[in-house]
């Protein structure tokens, strides 16, 4: 008798749990429907490089449109694109172009990523202020990050081991750097992959023989802690420091467009936000944050 009782109770409990789960699921999907019809709450997810910029945009935008709420999170461009494909974000901020593989996956899921370039970013190469090296060619950079040059003496510095710092592979900066500087070669496995730009700045500022790459905006903000290295496109070209002028003119070789991705054409409040970013006011935010305007 007792054991039957127990079983009945067990079934009841299972039923209860199932009911709760069902209610939760139903609640969530209801919210989705609502969000689609009104969109008072915009979520933007993606590139860590762009978090500063997008939050500044969001702040300025919310001042103009107090009825709307914009939430901004980072995590890396890959994370943002994955979120766009999974339908968990309205807008994805990405510091790299969407990959063919991701595009195929998007089409499978009936999502049509729409790319909008909103600003330009230069990637700065940073070293410790105590490091005597202050200019590198693209070839030298590529040799350093692919592991062909292991010591600073290989590129005209002191005889010390190069301590390589990179972003995690989920970062858009990682992929862009790999494509642009390493000519699509692989990073050396000895490169340390740090979880955030701030961790790279922190390590470069404390480790004398470290080298890393960060978005120009970050490097400028941390100019008292790290030294920005001038870059030569090749042996014979002049060394160029990254700045708004050199990035825009294309003299500085390591620069990239920053994008927003949406599912399909922007509509309603999403369109308002994108238009704001591209407006003169929005582009002013771009230069204030340390990036380069698109026009």
């Amino acid at each position, binding site marked *: 008798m007792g054991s039957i009782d127990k079983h009945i109770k*067990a079934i009841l409990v299972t039923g209860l749990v199932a009911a709760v789960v069902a209610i939760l699921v139903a609640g969530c999907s209801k919210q989705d429907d609502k969000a689609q019809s009104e969109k008072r709450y915009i979520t933007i997810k993606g590139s860590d490089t762009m978090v500063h910029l997008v939050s500044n945009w969001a702040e300025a935008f919310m001042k103009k449109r107090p009825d709307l709420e914009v939430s901004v999170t980072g995590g890396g461009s890959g994370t943002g694109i994955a979120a766009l494909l999974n339908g968990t974000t309205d807008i994805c901020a990405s510091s790299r172009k969407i990959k063919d593989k991701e595009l195929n996956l998007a089409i499978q899921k009936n999502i049509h990523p729409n790319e909008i370039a909103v600003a330009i970013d230069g990637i700065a190469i940073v070293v410790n202020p105590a490091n005597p090296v202050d200019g590198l060619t693209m070839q030298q950079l590529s040799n350093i990050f692919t592991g062909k040059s292991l010591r600073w003496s290989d590129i005209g510095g002191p005889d010390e081991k190069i*301590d390589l710092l990179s972003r995690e592979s989920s970062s858009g900066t990682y992929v862009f750097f790999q494509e642009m500087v390493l000519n699509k070669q*692989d990073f050396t496995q000895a490169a340390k*992959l740090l979880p955030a730009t701030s961790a790279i700045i922190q390590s470069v500022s404390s480790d004398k023989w470290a080298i890393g790459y960060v978005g120009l905006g970050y490097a400028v903000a941390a100019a008292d802690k790290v030294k920005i290295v001038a870059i030569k496109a090749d042996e014979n070209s002049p060394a160029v420091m990254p700045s708004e002028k050199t990035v825009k003119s294309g003299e500085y070789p390591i620069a990239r467009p920053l994008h927003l991705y949406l599912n399909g054409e922007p509509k309603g409040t999403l369109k308002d936000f994108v238009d704001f970013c591209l407006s003169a006011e929005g582009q002013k935010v771009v230069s204030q944050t340390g990036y380069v305007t698109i026009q």
Partner: protein
Amino acid sequence: MLLSTATTSILIVAGIFVFLGKEGSPFLAKPGLKELISTRWMPVSFQKESFGILPLVTGSLLVTALATLLTIPFGVGASVYISELARPVEREILKPFIEVLAGIPSVVIGFFGLVVIVPLIKTCFRLSTGLTALAGAVLLALMAIPTVISISEDALRSVPTSYKAASLALGASKMQTIWRVTVPAALPGITAAIMLGMGRVIGETMAVMMVTGNAAVMTASPFDSVRTMTATIAAEMGEVAFGSDHYRALFCVGIALLLATFGLNMVAQKVLKKYRMG
């Protein structure tokens, strides 16, 4: 009611195994097991993506082994002191502090490591950077020590008083009694304590990710950077395209990790059980 709550945990464990297996196993069919047991982890590449989990496994092993080496003297020493030598007042003070240590969130320990331990290791060993396997091991030892202390203290306490009395009656000093009678008698319990501590260490993520530098190289040196299995999953899972090889490879890493902790826990439980029977 109670039966269903108790069986839920079994169901969950079985569910996790099935789910991990389901998501991970297609990897064995296509890129194949050979790809998995190679030495190169390069999941994002324009050339050829590589998913060799060996550097991750050795990374986890190195950090765990170092952490265990650091944990044993501190954990066992402290438990012997607390159970055999400490006066009641000292015990009253020591125990709560050890419990507080056990309760510190790992991300806080990681932050402490980044700001304090990493620069300390860099200066002490004259390295170019403190982001090393050793830094991770120190933090993990901090987390494992409380577990080891409380379980081995239990083991030491349950050694029958008659053993100690007999030893003392034969003219052995207090120290001789502790090291030659009490500790050997409690050894199975202490071993189990260490293994449970290791189980916690191998599965720890956040603190390790913040301080080990995460370079996927195979190394046996505590002064090199390593990438652990847990840090790899945490860092890459958010970015990965659902259903890709990379996604499946991460699940395979998860399976390897689960098997390791599962194995350690099983052995520890066996040892613990045997000693309770005896």
